[in-house]
């Protein structure tokens, strides 16, 4: 038996097979995890949060007639007061918007904004204990870093608690969904 001569004649074939295997693996890898879009474009983007992280929305029912909506606004981000809006599959009363920060805007004049935690009480005059409400919240805000996010509509399902049961749990919208998906 002469393993040495046999193996040396096999090396190119083995190398060729290895090359094919490697390319196939690489192909499979990149198909499974394609690079982020525009990765090659010279886009020096500021470090920014996705809007649903910059303006974390949640809601709960305080009682059968009152919803509490929260926006936890990340540092360096702000929401516009006049772009906030709430609707549900039951009639809602006038939301109790807290005092906002005043800012002069060259085009719109005075604008009102919120930073930090924004808590809004929204009356549900026709609310019934045990009822499940689909609450939609519209909002729009910007980052001090120099970008603005388009108006967003987020939705949560809130169950109205029975009388004397106390406030319900805070509900957040489901994550991992793009705004336009």
């Amino acid at each position, binding site marked *: 038996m002469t393993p040495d001569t046999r193996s040396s004649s096999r090396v190119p074939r*083995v190398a060729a097979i290895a090359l094919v295997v*490697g390319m196939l693996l*690489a192909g499979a890898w990149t198909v499974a995890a394609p690079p982020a*879009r*525009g990765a090659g474009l010279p886009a020096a*983007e500021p470090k920014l949060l996705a809007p649903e992280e910059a303006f974390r929305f949640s809601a709960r029912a305080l009682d059968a007639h009152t919803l509490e909506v929260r926006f936890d606004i990340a540092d360096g981000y702000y929401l516009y007061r006049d772009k906030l809006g709430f609707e549900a599959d039951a009639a809602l009363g006038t939301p109790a918007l807290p005092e906002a920060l005043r800012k002069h805007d060259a085009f719109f004049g005075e604008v009102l904004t919120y930073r930090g935690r924004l808590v809004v009480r929204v009356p549900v005059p026709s609310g019934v204990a045990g009822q499940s409400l689909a609450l939609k919240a519209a909002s729009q805000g910007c980052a001090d870093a120099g970008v*603005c996010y388009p108006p967003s509509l987020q939705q949560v399902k809130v169950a109205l608690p029975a009388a004397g049961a106390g406030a319900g749990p805070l509900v957040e919208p489901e994550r991992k969904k793009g705004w336009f998906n």
Partner: protein
Amino acid sequence: MLAPPDPDPAARRSSWRRWALVAGVVAIALIAGIELARYGYRAADEARAAAALLAVELPDPSGRVQRIDQWRGKVLVVNFWATWCVPCREEMPGFIKAQAASGGRGLQFVGIAVDKPEPVQRFASELGLNYPTLIGGLPAMVLSRELGNRLVALPFTIVLDRGGRVVATHLGPVKPADLHAIVDPLLQP
């Protein structure tokens, strides 16, 4: 239990060498394959983005439908903006200046406003906008995402060369110096 000693150390060495070679080739091929595929994705992405952008038809503030590819052959700077976006408004005087200075050398700005016609018209005349802006509304945000606007935020700017190829995309205000660095080499002398 001990394994019996290898009867042929020379054969063992050669088989070790063969496997080292195989591993090396697999590693190199893996890296080459990934890079090649990345390059392919990128090139295909950019070509798709540019074609999608040039095919866009949107109304101007007066309601007339305009096609982006009417400006093909120019160095095209397409800027997604809105009147409700302060950083967008703040960068536009720089665009107006660049359009006035380099329009004759083939530079063409086009705005796509994620907005309603009335505020756009009002802002354009207040500012003395010297380049066209089209009304995209919210669907324009979807378009900008396809062009690489990962966060779907404003302002977002994309530069195409005279051949309609994507040269740069940028989220956030574009610094005048950066704009010059990208655009100037593409303009007529």
